[in-house]
């Protein structure tokens, strides 16, 4: 947890800000430590370790607003910093919509702030960490003569944060993250060196997958050998659970208060309307225990709660913080999504594929973008051609192009294989008729 010294510092600075011209202020202190070990082929290639501090202020001055951050934690220097920050903020135009949240919206519970913190991180030794990276490489190194390079990386980090504001909010959080990843490069056709990766991440050491990450990366790289593009056309598309986030992200961005306030969202007038297939039910579940993304309050201190985001295809929630609620003349909800869950279907990835006579399984996106105002998108993809329920040929160097609203309306089925190590717990998805460009 954040040290008493830093908590005192935050309180002193809050008083200082109030005394020196701020009508309101919010201060956060974040400290963290990160370690990583990267082992390649036969040797430890890089090791890194560092501790960091960050103090961030949101200042409300004469109806104006500014945010300021620094890693210099000395009180006198910080006071000077705040004085300058207040002067800078005074040079702005007024913004009547800026305020702290109403105190009744704050989180006021007594839940343990460190439920995502695993003390094991304090017990691990450098050699334990190195061994994790090394063992991941040794799972596969020299097991296939096409292997050029195998890199295993182990990393862990802890983050402690403390948030207070002049309306009386006080909250803190401590969290650990453990990550194990592998990258494999192979000798392919000609000069090509197909590459792939796999990883696992968890808040808790016990839950981290410690074996098989190297093997999975190799398996994925091998399956890419002989990739080719195929004929352009409209195909059913299965997207594996690791990659669904790429398609979900433009939707979530379009639900944000800022995009709505700037009229830069293709979901602008869509509240309460059908924006996806009835088979899509998406929920924000901030209180799922031991889960990446879980939190009791957002960055304003507002209490989180379970929210239907999309229910049977109907849009139910926009992510609207205090500022944007005032600008949009609507009620605030929460600043951003915490843990997004899908109502599961009854098939896993294999099951989704098995029912297709012909289609494309997407296992990776390569670049591309989406237009925030219209929802038009175009992404590079790789994956497999599916015929008669089986992946038959690896494909690459193709694009999928369409519109977000059309795409999500064409969703046919959600998988039951949701990711667990990620705050977006995406399952594999099956869409009907998507435009692929290739030959």
């Amino acid at each position, binding site marked *: 947890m954040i040290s008493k010294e830093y908590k005192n510092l935050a309180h002193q600075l809050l008083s200082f800000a109030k005394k020196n011209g701020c009508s309101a202020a919010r201060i956060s202190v974040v400290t963290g430590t990160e370690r990583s070990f990267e082992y390649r082929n036969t*040797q430890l*290639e*890089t*090791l*890194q*370790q*560092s501790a*960091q*501090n960050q103090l961030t202020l949101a200042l409300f001055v004469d109806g*104006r*607003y*500014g945010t*300021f951050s*620094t*890693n*210099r934690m000395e009180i*006198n*220097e910080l006071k*000077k*910093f705040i004085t*300058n920050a207040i002067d*800078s903020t005074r040079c*702005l*135009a007024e*913004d009547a919509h800026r305020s702290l949240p109403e105190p009744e919206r704050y989180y006021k519970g007594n839940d343990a702030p460190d439920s995502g913190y695993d003390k094991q991180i304090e017990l691990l030794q450098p050699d334990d960490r190195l061994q994790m990276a090394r063992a991941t490489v040794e799972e596969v190194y020299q097991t296939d003569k096409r292997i*050029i390079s195998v890199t295993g990386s182990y990393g862990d980090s802890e983050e402690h944060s403390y948030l207070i504001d002049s309306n009386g909010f006080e909250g803190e959080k401590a969290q650990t993250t453990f990550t194990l990843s592998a990258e494999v490069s192979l000798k*392919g056709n000609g*000069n*090509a*060196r197909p*590459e792939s990766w796999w990883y696992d991440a968890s808040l808790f050491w016990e839950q981290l997958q410690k074996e098989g990450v190297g093997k999975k990366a190799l398996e994925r790289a091998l399956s*890419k050998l002989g*990739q080719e*593009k195929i004929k*352009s056309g409209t195909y059913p598309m299965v997207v594996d659970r690791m990659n669904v986030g790429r398609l979900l992200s433009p939707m979530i961005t379009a639900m944000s208060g800022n995009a709505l306030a*700037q*009229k*830069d969202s293709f979901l*602008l007038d869509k509240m309460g309307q059908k924006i996806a297939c009835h088979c899509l039910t998406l929920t924000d579940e901030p209180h799922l225990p031991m889960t990446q993304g879980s939190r009791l309050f957002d960055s304003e201190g507002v209490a989180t709660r379970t929210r239907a985001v999309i229910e049977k295809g109907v849009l139910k929630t926009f992510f609207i913080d205090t500022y944007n609620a005032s*600008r949009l003349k609507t009620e605030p909800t929460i600043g951003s999504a915490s843990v997004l869950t899908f109502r599961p279907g009854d098939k896993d990835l294999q099951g989704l594929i098995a029912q297709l006579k012909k289609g494309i399984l997407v296992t990776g996106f*390569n*670049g*591309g*973008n989406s*237009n*925030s*105002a*219209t929802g038009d*998108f*175009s*992404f590079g993809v790789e994956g497999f051609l599916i015929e008669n329920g089986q992946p038959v040929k690896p494909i690459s*160097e*193709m*694009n*999928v*192009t369409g519109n977000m609203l059309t795409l999500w309306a064409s969703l046919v089925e959600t998988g039951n294989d949701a990711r667990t190590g990620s705050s977006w717990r995406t399952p594999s998805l099956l869409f009907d008729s998507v*435009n692929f*460009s*290739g*030959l």
Partner: protein
Amino acid sequence: MERRNFIGMGGMALMGSALIPDLLMITSCADAKNAIALMMNHFGVSESDLKKVMAAALENGADYADLYFEHTFNNYLSLQDGAVNRVSSNIDYGVGVRVVVGDRTGYAYAENITPEEMLKATRTASRIASGNTGTTAAVNVSEPVFTDYYPVVRSWEEVTVKDKTPYVQKINDRCFAMDRRVAKVIASQSDTTSYLLFYNSEGILCCDYRPMASLSAYCIMNDKGRTENFHSARAFRKGAEFLTDDVVETVCREAIDGASRMFTAVKPKGGEMPVVMAAGGSGILLHEAIGHAFEADFNRKNISIFSDLLGKKVCNEHINVIDDGTIAGNRGSINFDDEGTPSRKTCIVTEGILTSYLHDRISARHYGIPSTGNGRRESFRYAPMPRMRCTYMENGNASEEEIIAGVKNGVYADKFTNGQVQIGAGDFTFFVKSGYLIENGKLTQPIKDINIIGNGPKALADITMVADNLLLDNSTWTCGKNGQSIPVTQGLPSVLVKKLTVGGI
């Protein structure tokens, strides 16, 4: 006043202003010495502190070590809903310690620059070495003089929020004046100033004062119930002299024209076709298709599709490609890279031959050649690695008109947002925000929002015509690699790529 307190008294803009006149005009050895002395004073370190830490860095047996001191100030002003109503600033301060043994790196940093904290970080970083017989630190310190590629006329420390606000406001007002369909404008201005001090085990001691400035306009337009958006920006390593009415006019014009064109644009029919890359931002083709794959860390690991192609013919013999860190005021320029190597202009493709990878110290040592000055890092929190600077192709002798005239059915791409590449497979992509169809040798219907995908070596070999209109794109290009973001630029004369896969419907 005690040295460390001197730093402590500063705020965002005031900090270090006493240093500025000396740092802005380093043209001789005496100036360099003076600047380094000021910078050491700024960071509160003496030559004996540096030598002591260096000795500790090498004591486990290492080939090389360096210390990278940084104090960076970033200020950001932005406008929404018609008024400049948000400001933010960030200060970052610390020292990175790197210890290198062969291809292996130990790295740590300290946010408090005290001898104790530096030694603590050093002990962590030096764990990469274990009893090997390494090198010893140079006894003599050398203070090389570097060419200044970004002389500052008026430092950002001399400018207040009040001075900057009118330019951001003007972006809003000009955009609304230019077109009745404008619904919203998001305008922003950002400036960054970095104080850098570098010392390594070869005894090189140098400092830099790195400015960065940008101005951007994002315009949202409504027309007959439809909404479109467009972004335009300019960025340079310049002081506050960057802020002019001309640059405001440029970004506004580009945003308005871009958004206007979107209303008449369609998505093309997708598939393989010839693509004419317009002069300027099309340099993204070089950045993604070959630039990353030429970075020598990927090649020393033998995982790039170009790993076996050094010295080989990779494209038409009239093609020359450059990565240049020495263009005055350019966003990708550096006086020296982040491991003390002087910046330079590096020919990576010469008359169609792959003549050089982009090197940092580690890869240069691996190949037994001097570094090309491409060892860059995001900040003191990261170890450097090979990165691009300003990557562009030299002029050819065709004209853009004759290139377009030779295409029966294809697309012309001129505005881009982002790109990506797979180093080993060679597949790269870039997103075309807007362009045109080419039909029977003429630009016809505008197109928008499509991805183009190709394979690096094939695309390079498929460049069959190069025009004589090289243009560098000075937008806010930021390159990401292994979690580190750095500023870069790129450029291209108009070229014809015989065949790429164009996204569409």
